[in-house]
């Protein structure tokens, strides 16, 4: 029972990558700049936020981040926001598309026998491709603006973890959204709120207790801060142990809940889609 998701993936690896590639083609075919659109939208979003906060509101030019040591860490707002928002684009797509994905791929559920959980995997991989593309652009900026560091390699810790976390989350949200469109709408409607509740545009460490601790409960902060650990703060992922521990606990919870929900609803999916 517990292993059903893993069993469905067994021997299907090559097909998953092929289907992921086709998912990308499906998204971007027929457009002149094709996959360029995957960059245009985030780039414009970054520009708008920078314009609104640094040019419009004016007060947000330099960020002072409290990293627990003597002096606050100071950095210009654009760099701070840019590094945090790149994982956010992936997270946002993962949550919204992840919830919708079974409904949009219903032909694989109601018509043929198909390892249903792999649908979530290949769509997630196609989003990962886009994320890597954005990462390459961001890293070009990082090298130019901050310079490379060994800590950058921690990307290979945070990125797979982020992929797994939101994949496991979709094991819960996708079958539930397939079951009830209201659940899907609920997720879509809270997403822009989630953005402002997460430390993307501001520093989630800068609060007093207990709010500082509450901010740790938001896993999105873990990744926004994590990417900043890699590229901006240059500190190891285990530096802030409470943050890491809270996240890992949540990860185990989401993982277990995902397996539970998937198994609970998998066999009902063909009846409701």
């Amino acid at each position, binding site marked *: 029972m517990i292993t059903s998701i893993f069993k469905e993936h067994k021997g299907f690896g090559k097909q998953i990558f092929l289907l992921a590639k086709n998912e990308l083609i499906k998204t971007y075919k027929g457009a002149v700049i094709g996959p360029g659109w995957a960059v245009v939208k985030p780039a414009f979003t970054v520009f708008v936020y920078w314009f609104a906060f640094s040019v419009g509101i004016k007060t947000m030019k330099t960020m002072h981040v409290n990293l627990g040591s003597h002096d606050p860490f100071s950095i210009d707002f654009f760099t701070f926001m840019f590094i945090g928002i790149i994982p956010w684009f992936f997270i946002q797509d993962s949550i919204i598309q992840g919830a919708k994905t079974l409904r949009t791929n219903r032909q694989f559920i109601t018509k043929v*026998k198909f390892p249903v959980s792999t649908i979530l995997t290949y769509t997630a991989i196609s989003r990962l491709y886009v994320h890597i593309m954005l990462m390459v652009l961001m890293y070009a900026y990082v090298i130019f603006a901050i310079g490379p560091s060994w800590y950058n390699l921690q990307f290979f810790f945070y990125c797979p973890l982020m992929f797994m976390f939101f994949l496991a989350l979709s094991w819960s949200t996708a079958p539930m959204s397939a079951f009830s469109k209201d659940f899907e709408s609920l997720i879509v409607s809270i997403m822009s709120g989630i953005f402002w509740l997460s430390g993307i545009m501001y520093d989630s460490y800068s609060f007093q207790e207990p709010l500082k601790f509450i901010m740790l409960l938001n896993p999105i902060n873990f990744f926004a801060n994590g990417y900043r650990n890699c590229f901006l703060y240059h500190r190891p992922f285990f530096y802030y142990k409470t943050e890491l521990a809270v996240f890992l606990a949540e990860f185990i919870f989401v993982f277990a809940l995902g397996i539970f929900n998937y198994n609970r609803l998998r066999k009902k999916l063909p009846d409701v889609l």
Partner: protein
Amino acid sequence: MSEAIITFKNVSKTYILYKNDQARFKALFFKPRNPKTNKALNDVSFEIYRGESVGIVGDNGAGKSTLLKMITGVAFPDEGEIIVNGKVAALLELTAGFSMEMTGRENIYLKGYILGLEDAYIKQIEERIIEFAELGDYIDQPVRTYSSGMKMRLGFAINVNIEPDVLVVDEALSVGDASFKRKCKDKIKEIISAGTTVLYVSHNAESVREICPRSIYLRKGTVIFDGNTDETLKVYQDYKAAQKNKKK
């Protein structure tokens, strides 16, 4: 008799009919209280042996599709157990289940993997499938560019060429123009005479009689009669005649 290839043990399936979307949302978290239900299959048990051809007859809504969906592994029972020993090929919805952006050739592999076939084996049957589907150069084009007839041909070709252990056929199947239809019929006959287990669903008594020595008659989700096709059809037709008389 040889070993059973399909076994249904007290299989029941109930569809829950949600009153509205609100009830559906609620059902995500709580078990619905006295929901309206539709019992599609009710305590169905039978065994089908290797090499048998079995007809399934019954009116619309008798549970035929649900039964077939369970054999093909698309739907699942609420109660009971289903054991299927072998590859199932279904000639039901031939145009479904393709990945539209993939080429015809890639879809052959996708389908093969889903059925648990090895690379080497798929390679072996690939050419046969392409030839049978009469797709020519289109085989390396994305399936979304196919006409519906081409999709059906490909779907049919894949299903009949994987050397299935069980072939599920819906008689109402349409596969395009007359000449291809002819070809399909011949192929099905060839598969049957090769000793493949066949499940044949039809409203047409004659074609069931022609293909299947044994038949199962379903009415409202229950097996009414299971046995010799002539006897089964007699029970079915008697019931139908009785219904007609009642109406009069």
